[in-house]
């Protein structure tokens, strides 16, 4: 995954945020990013949300689906943030993005809440979609973040 050379600089923001990713956390982050993006160049902007699903397979029960209360994300700090940013920079250069923002949760994120927000903008749709797909694939390999299921307590 080598980045092409001589690409224009692209605003990059990568943050680890405690708990679920709320609208406020994102708005604050985007304010920094948007001021750097020149209008009229980008033809496509995509925002991806990864959300905690209720049903996870439980390895302790032969992979059977079991209702989840939350996921607990553990991050290896500060390497996690640095790898997140490093990944964002590589993806931005490879796909000639105009801006990229990645936010990831740390700690407890209840079912239905957002643990990952990725925002990319680029000249055309194809680049933006390819960047999105590749970012998430690499995230799951290269960024030191682990998740632990917190199972819903069976009602007595």
């Amino acid at each position: 995954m080598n980045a092409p050379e001589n690409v224009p600089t692209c605003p990059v923001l990568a943050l680890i945020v405690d708990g679920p990713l709320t609208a406020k956390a994102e708005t604050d982050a985007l304010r920094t990013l948007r001021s750097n993006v020149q209008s009229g160049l980008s033809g496509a902007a995509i925002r991806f949300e990864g959300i905690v699903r209720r049903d996870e397979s439980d390895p302790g029960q032969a992979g059977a689906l079991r209702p989840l209360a939350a996921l607990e994300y553990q991050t290896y700090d500060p390497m996690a943030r640095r790898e997140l940013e490093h990944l964002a920079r590589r993806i931005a250069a490879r796909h000639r993005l105009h801006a990229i923002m990645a936010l990831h949760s740390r700690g407890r994120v209840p079912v239905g809440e957002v643990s990952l927000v990725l925002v990319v903008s680029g000249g055309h749709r194809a680049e933006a979609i390819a960047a999105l797909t590749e970012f998430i694939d690499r995230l799951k390999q290269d960024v030191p973040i682990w998740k632990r299921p917190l199972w819903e307590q069976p009602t007595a």
Partner: protein
Amino acid sequence: MLTFGAAAACAKADRVTVTVGEGATVREVLAALAEQHRALRFALPNPDTGRLAVNQAFASGDHPVRPGDEVALITLVGGG
């Protein structure tokens, strides 16, 4: 050495001690880890490609590990 996630669960600890000779490389540390902590074998990366972080950065198999370095086993990550 720091452990996380499933590796920490299997080691029943968030850090384990690995004894290696002076001037050992990442590759040698991984081999020693496999010997000294059998419960962690499932989680071990390929000793040649290496998947240890030394001082918070991924390090290749040839990378030397020095006294005082922070070494972490980065495996089976699952963000997103």
